[in-house]
C-alpha cells in the first residue's frame, strides 16, 4: 500500500487555486466586477459631476450618504453569492467534470472547502471594491474626518460574514439541481424572492423584529449600523452576526454532507 505524499493542506491550495483561476477565466468575476463598478462607480461619478454641494444637499451627513449607498450591499451580496456558489456542487454532477475531479485521490471535503475559500475570496474582493468606492465618495463629498470609520469597518466585516452565509446557502442549494445554470437561478430566486416573501408573511404575523431565521433580515444591519450608529443598529449587530455565522456554518455542513453523498 502506497501512502499519499501530499497533505490535505497542499491539495486544498490546488483546489483553491483551480477555482480562483476558474472565476478569473470565465465571465462571472468580470461580470460582477462590472456590476459593482457600474453601480457604485456610476453613482459616485454621477454625484461628482453635480459636485459636493449637491451631495451635501441630498444627504445631511456622510453617515447618511454612506448608509444609503451601503443599502445596495445586501442585493450585491446575494447576487455575488449566487454567482460564485450557485453551481458549486452541481458543476460536478450535472456535467462529466465530476468523473474527472472526484476520481482523484483528494477528499471531497478538501475540494469543497477549496472552492468555498475561492468563492469567499472573490466575493470579498467584489464587496471590498464596493466599499472602497463608497469610501472614496464619502471622503470626496464630505471629508476624511466625517467618515464613520468604526461603523464602516464593522459594516464591512458584517458584509463579509453575510457573503460567507450566502455562499454556504448557495453551495447547499446547488446540490438540488444537476444543471449548474438552474442551480444558479434557484439560488437567486430563493434568496431574492422566496425568502423575501417568507419574511413578509412571517413579519405580518410576528413583527419584523423576530425574523431571526432570515439572512435578508440580518443584511439590514450593514447599512443601519452606519446611519443609526453601531449600538442602535436594527437588527442588533450581534444578532445579525450570529444569523450570518449560523448560515455560514450550518449550510456549510449541509453542503459538505450533500457533496459527500452525491453520486455521479
Amino acid at each position, binding site marked *: 500500500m*502506497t501512502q499519499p505524499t501530499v497533505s490535505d493542506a497542499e491539495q486544498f491550495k490546488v483546489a483553491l487555486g483551480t477555482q480562483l483561476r476558474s472565476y478569473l477565466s470565465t465571465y462571472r468575476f468580470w461580470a460582477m466586477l462590472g456590476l459593482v463598478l457600474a453601480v457604485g462607480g456610476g453613482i459616485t461619478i454621477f454625484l461628482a459631476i453635480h459636485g459636493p454641494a449637491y451631495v451635501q444637499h441630498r444627504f445631511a451627513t456622510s453617515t447618511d450618504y454612506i448608509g444609503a449607498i451601503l443599502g445596495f450591499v445586501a442585493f450585491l451580496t446575494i447576487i455575488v453569492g449566487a454567482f460564485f456558489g450557485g453551481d458549486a456542487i452541481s458543476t460536478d454532477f450535472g456535467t462529466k*467534470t465530476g468523473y474527472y475531479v472526484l476520481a482523484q485521490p483528494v477528499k471531497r471535503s478538501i475540494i469543497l472547502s477549496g472552492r468555498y475559500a475561492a468563492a469567499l475570496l472573490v466575493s470579498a474582493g467584489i464587496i471590498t471594491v464596493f466599499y472602497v468606492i463608497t469610501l472614496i465618495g464619502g471622503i470626496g463629498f464630505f471629508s476624511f474626518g466625517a467618515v464613520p470609520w468604526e461603523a464602516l469597518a464593522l459594516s464591512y466585516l458584517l458584509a463579509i460574514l453575510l457573503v460567507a452565509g450566502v455562499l454556504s446557502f448557495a453551495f447547499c442549494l446547488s446540490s438540488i439541481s444537476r444543471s449548474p445554470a438552474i442551480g444558479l437561478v434557484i439560488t437567486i430566486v430563493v434568496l431574492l424572492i422566496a425568502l423575501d416573501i417568507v419574511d413578509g408573511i412571517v413579519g405580518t404575523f410576528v413583527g419584523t423584529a423576530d425574523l431571526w431565521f432570515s439572512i435578508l433580515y440580518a443584511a439590514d444591519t450593514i447599512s443601519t449600523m452606519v446611519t443609526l450608529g453601531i449600538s442602535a443598529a436594527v437588527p442588533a449587530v450581534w444578532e445579525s452576526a450570529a444569523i450570518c455565522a449560523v448560515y455560514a456554518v450550518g449550510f456549510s455542513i449541509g453542503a459538505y454532507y450533500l457533496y459527500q453523498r452525491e453520486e*455521479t
Partner: protein
Amino acid sequence: MPSLEAQGLTKRYGAFIALDQATFKFEGAGAVGYLGPNGAGKTTTLKLLTGLAWPSAGRAFLNGVDIGRDPKTALWDVGTVIESPEPYPWQTGQQTLEMVAAFRGVPRAQARAKIHELAAELDLPPLDRKTGALSKGQRQRIVIASSLLSDPSVIILDEPTSGLDPAERIAVRNMLVRLKRERLILMSSHLLSEVTEVCDRAVFINHGKILLNETVENIAKRAVDTQVDIEFAVPIHPDQLGSIADLVRSVVALSPTKLRIDYGGHSDARSEILKRCVAVGPVLSYTSATLVLEDAYLQLIGGGVSGTNHLAGD
C-alpha cells in the same frame, strides 16, 4: 503488488439491482477485461471501485485499502478514466494535466517531463488549447494521459478507446499492452478484439451479475472453433473446393479470395482442410472466424448470433 478487490459489491436503485453481489480479486501485473452489454453493470462496478458512487452493500478495495473508508489513500496509486470524463472546459490541456499532477503530488519538473512523454506517446492535441475547444477524442486522450501522470500501479478504464479514431485506438492499445507488464489494468470495453489483444483475464457481467471470471488462456482452451476463414492469393470459387466436401458443412465466399468454412470443430479436420486447400491454390491466411472471447460472450450473454463457436463444458 497492485490489487483490486470487490467483496459482495451491490448497488440498488430502488427495486432495480444494478450490481448484485459482485466479488472478485485481482493481484499483480496484468490486464483484466470487463465485458458485458449496455446496462449490464460494468460502469456501476467501476464507479463503486473508484468512489464515484456508493455501494448499497459490500466493499471495494484498491491496493488493499477500502475505498469507502479512506478514498484518498485508496485512489492514491490508481489512475482512472470513467465514462469519458470532461476536464474543466476553461483549462488548457497543460493546466488540466498540471492540476492532476499537483493533486497527486508529482513534482512540477517531473510532471512536465511526464506530460511531454505522454504527449508524444498519445499524440496529445496542442496543450495550450482550452479543453472545451477540443474534440471528444482529443479530450479523451488528455484524460487518459492524466490517469497515467503519476505512474499508478492500478489503472481502471471504462471504454478507454471510446471516441477515438482507429489510429488513436491502436496507440492506446499498444500503450496498454506495454503498461500491463508492470501494472494492473481493469478495463471495460465493447470491443472484444481490443480485450483479446490487451487482456490476460476476462470477466463477463450481465444483469448486474458476474457470469464468468477466467483467464483468456483458459477460455481459449475450452473454446471449440467451428468456422475458419481462409484467404487465397488468387480468386477461388467455393465450387473449386470440392476436395474438402467430406470434411465441411458449408463454404461461403466472403470475397473473391476469402472464404468461410464451417467444418464442425474437429482439429484433425481443420488441419486436413488446410492441407487440401493448399493444393487448390496459394493460401495467404487461415484463421478462426471468431474470437475466443466472442464465443464466450455469445454463449454467456447472447446477442442474436448463432452457429459460431462454443465453449466446451462449463
